[in-house]
């Protein structure tokens, strides 16, 4: 049984800005100008999402709908554990995997193989009885990069890079799949392989959360929708209804 429960969650961005540097802080402390310091603080803090509520159970496929800056990726990153909410609570039950910036953390001066090995350790596969050599072999086969697999990643074309990243993150299927845009990669031949693997993943995962601008994908895959729009957002049990609401609100 997998489950995601999001209760009244808000995420606030606070940026480290030069204005908030030690000098500023010291000056404002010395001047005892508390009011001024407060307004600077407020300007630096931005509520990215707030009042988000939803429950997902095994079998649910949620699509996040919203324009740029509506908070789709922020919500995904929060579910991934990158950003800590400033209000509310999130409970997740199930192994999860986030496909956000899938190449992130890859070291360009290491070879493809070394990156795959590192990824294996990062994901903690070593602690759960997944064999390293088999994992590397599977990724190598799927990415199909030939001898380049043993070359530093900075010699790769962007297409090859994506193929490697795609192959290594999708090798193990999680119970909860967090997706920032549907992944597709590579040339025509690889794209076919990639899309069939994506479909397999989306079918196998117990819960999927997908952020996308594509209404076709939303309608094809999802049974629930969350329309995000800054401070207001609405949860729908039907995707067509949600898309209609979204289009009307624009």
């Amino acid at each position, binding site marked *: 049984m997998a489950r995601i429960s999001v*209760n*009244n*969650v808000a995420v606030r*961005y*606070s*940026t*480290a800005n*030069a204005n908030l*540097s*030690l*000098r500023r802080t010291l000056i404002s402390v010395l001047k005892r100008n508390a009011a001024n310091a407060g307004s600077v603080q407020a300007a630096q803090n931005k509520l990215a999402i707030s009042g988000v509520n939803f429950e997902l159970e095994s079998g649910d496929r949620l699509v996040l709908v919203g324009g740029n800056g509506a908070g789709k990726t922020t919500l995904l990153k*929060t*579910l*991934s*554990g*990158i*950003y*800590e*909410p*400033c*209000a*509310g*609570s*999130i*409970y*997740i*039950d*199930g*192994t*999860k*995997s*986030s496909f*956000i*910036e899938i190449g*992130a*953390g890859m*070291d360009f*001066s*290491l070879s493809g193989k*070394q990156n795959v*090995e*590192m*990824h294996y*350790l*990062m*994901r*903690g596969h*070593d*602690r*759960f009885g997944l064999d390293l050599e088999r994992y590397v072999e599977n990724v190598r086969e799927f990415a199909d990069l030939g001898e380049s697999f043993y070359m530093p990643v900075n010699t790769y074309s962007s297409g090859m890079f994506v193929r490697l990243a795609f192959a290594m993150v999708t090798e193990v299927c999680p*119970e909860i799949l967090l997706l920032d845009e549907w992944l597709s990669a590579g040339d025509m031949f690889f794209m076919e392989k990639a899309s069939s693997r994506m479909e397999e993943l989306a079918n196998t995962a117990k819960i999927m959360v997908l952020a996308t601008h594509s209404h076709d994908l939303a309608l094809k895959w999802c049974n629930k929708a969350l329309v995000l729009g800054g401070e207001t957002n609405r949860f729908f049990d039907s995707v067509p209804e949600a898309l209609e609401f979204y289009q009307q609100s624009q």
Partner: protein
Amino acid sequence: MKYQRRFEYGPDCEVSILHRNYHDLVNGLQRRRLVFKLGVTEIAQRYRNTYLGPLWMTISLAVFLTILGYVGGALFNLELRDYLPYLCLGVVTWTFISAVVSESGQLFVTAPISTVVYDVPMSTFVYSFITRHLLLFAHNLLLYLLIAAYFGINFLPYLHFAILGMVILIIFSIGVTLSLAVICVRMRDIPQIVSNLLQVSFFATPIMWNAQLLADRGRKMILDLNPFYYLIEIVRAPLLGQEVDPMFYAVATSIALLTLLFGVAIYVRYKHRVMFYR
């Protein structure tokens, strides 16, 4: 063991954020293979495409010691036999301490923390950072072994004290890294202050010169108040085959534990904010 399946985020959770941050510290320690791999990879990266690799560090240290040993020996009127081993250990230990202190501020700014996506505890990067510097330290220590062998210094009877000293030093390093890594993400001016203080500390700490010299001239206070003096002495003296006043271990342990306590407090309190400030 199983993959993690339960996750809680947010201030309204049953498990408090402080508790979760503390768990991050503990979980990081359990990822030993990753910690070691990250540490080794970092070193390999730095000396990528060089013929001699990390040996370069030891070579530059050897050059430094030769010149300084020659000049300092004459300056302080010391036999090379007494001065060079002392200088070597001081510089090697100082290199470790100063590298940890000065680089820890950049740790969370540059570490590939986007990988927390993969449920890597953030503290893993702290431990791999310490591991990397310990490996470099051990590498540099080889130079001392050569010197010790050449001058016939037998430190084996005191080896356990040196190991105890290293443990204290590691505790201190973890404390420093935990606190500075978190603080410096938010306050980017701190690294500047730290590097400034470090530069001064090098001269105010008996590394190039002997502690006795300063004590003889009535400036003992600089030694008494200098935490680095204790931290270096507990490793250096036993390796020189000298007995150390237990007081040094007591003071150094206190310094290390206080630093660790501070580091853990800062980390547990603010770790979850790091991602916002990067």
